[in-house]
């Protein structure tokens, strides 16, 4: 079974971000970029499936600026077999990405799409769900555990009340949560091999997808500075404050 893993190039989550002076967005000039951490987890899981003999091929796909190729190379260095690059300078919205991914799925015919539950730049948490809907496939979101057997995936989902276990028919779109697995280090031999792995390029036009933005950003602002905390004297006082002031219990 072929596994398709979409990966996104985002601002390195460990660098401090600044809003542009004109409040039109986040300042990305000279900023360090990295693979979205949730995508990394999805790549890791896909590579593990391959190592277990469950997956036959892992294909990473990325839509975005030309440099997304570096993100693909990171995926290849983690053990993916091939890459698909969809270069565009348009600021892609979740629906556009989902449509691009659907076009790639139509071409590649994977048995499973494993992807991050969200990207840490927009934090939209929409693409996976939209893709599943466009494909008419089953979906399992926020998964923290997955087992594949007999044309189905048994997935554990992290939901507000606890953990939910679902049986999902394949092919399916699964979006991964933080606790699914720990991404590996790109090993030196794999980094060297990554150079030779193929990356196909398809433009959005090739794929027949109109990626014109439909949303308009009116303003981007920094979140308000956090207020200093307070110290409580006792557990009783803490519980009282949580109940009466924070109203969380």
């Amino acid at each position, binding site marked *: 079974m072929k596994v398709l893993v979409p990966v996104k190039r985002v601002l390195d989550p460990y660098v401090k971000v600044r809003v542009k002076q004109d409040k039109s967005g986040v300042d990305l000039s000279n900023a360090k970029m990295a693979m979205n951490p949730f995508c990394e987890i999805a790549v890791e899981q896909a590579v593990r499936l391959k190592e277990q003999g469950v997956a036959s091929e892992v294909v990473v796909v990325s839509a975005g600026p030309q440099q997304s190729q570096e993100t693909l190379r990171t995926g290849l260095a983690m053990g993916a077999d091939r890459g698909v690059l969809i270069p565009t300078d348009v600021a892609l919205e979740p629906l556009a990405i989902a449509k691009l991914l659907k076009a790639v799925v139509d071409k590649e015919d994977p048995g499973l799409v494993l992807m991050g539950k969200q990207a840490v730049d927009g934090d939209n948490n929409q693409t996976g769900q939209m893709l599943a809907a466009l494909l008419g496939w089953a979906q399992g979101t926020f998964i923290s555990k997955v087992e594949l057997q007999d044309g189905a995936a048994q997935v554990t989902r992290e939901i507000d009340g606890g953990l939910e276990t679902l049986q999902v028919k394949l092919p399916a779109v699964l979006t991964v949560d933080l606790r699914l697995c720990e991404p590996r280090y790109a*090993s030196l031999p794999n980094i060297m091999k990554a150079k030779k792995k193929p990356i196909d390029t398809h433009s959005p036009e090739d794929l027949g997808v109109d990626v014109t933005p439909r949303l308009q950003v009116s303003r981007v602002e920094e979140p308000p500075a956090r207020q200093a905390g307070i110290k409580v004297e006792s557990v009783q006082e803490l519980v009282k404050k949580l109940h009466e002031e924070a109203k969380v219990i």
Partner: protein
Amino acid sequence: MDFAPTTEQELVVDSVRKFVEQECYPHEQEVERTETVPAEVGEAIRRKAIENGFYAANMPAELGGGGLDTLTMTMMERELGRTSFALQAFVHRPSNILRACNDEQAERYLHPTIRGERMDCLAMTEPGAGSDLRGMKTTAVRDGGDWVINGTKHFISHADLADYTVLFAATGEEETPRGKRKKITTFLVDHDTPGLEVREGYRSVSHRGYHNCILNFDDCRVPARQVLGEEGAGFDLANTWLSASRLTVGTMCVGRARRAHEMSVEWSASRKQFGQPIGRFQGTGFKLADMATEIEAAEMLCLRAAWLHDQGRMSDQDAAMAKLFASEMLARVTDNAVQIYGGMGLMDELPIERFWRDARLERIWDGTSEIQRHIIARSLLRPHGA
């Protein structure tokens, strides 16, 4: 001229950085306070380094090493330099001098060392011979088919973890146009050879948890097949294979300086006095600016020398300049870091005081600053006949 690292170089840097942050940073404080690396921590780092191919990254891929060129290796060493010297040592890079092994020696030493089954250390320095290595008093004398070694080496890094030593010893004298000179020969000496005692060395203010040792040779007998390279060619061997080790020191200084600087920037932006972040005071802001500028300069010197090394064109002067400037830069950067942190800079709650202590060593080993200046001056004056 292209200053951009390749995609592979970026991947190596990112991956090694992540490795260092996740596998080494969490143990730093314990290593500092106990002055040892717990055995299981060291072994875990070694195992993971092997699994990920970071171990012996400097060795050729055909031999099972990482096959990195000097430039990429210099970038990797920079990332390793960010963490405690004691911890990063478990991502071992066998001494390049082992490449001089003949086939039979390679089976016994080079290959198992690359696999992580054996570990080398290198012994030149003696209590009476530091900068003046040719003044060494450790001798090896032929006796039948064997060599008999006598003498003392000190300051020998990692000899406690290693199971054999690449030893430099005097094996007679030779006439040269400038008078008599000691002949130096290199030997591979297993630590369990009778007559060799590996003793605990001194406690150092720098690089706690990593140990230097004293090696005592008392009629230590080794067979002729333990000679590495040609008899009497020890320094040629060192010049051929160890010329890039100064770059290792230099680039590790750059890595540590970067970490100290990143922390200093963060602190300067968050620590408030007189109602504003201390970074807004010119006294602090200018320090940050000077630190950043010097770090970039040191890094350029190291990377350029590494690039020249890959082209087979690095001179002693190139390596000396990189090591000299980077190690002295680190001293200034870490001193400024302490100043910027104020009192907290001296407390062992934070790694700043450690960076500052560790920095002191870098101007001494692998050739003191004075020796590096001597090398540079000599190569400037020699063409003028002086």
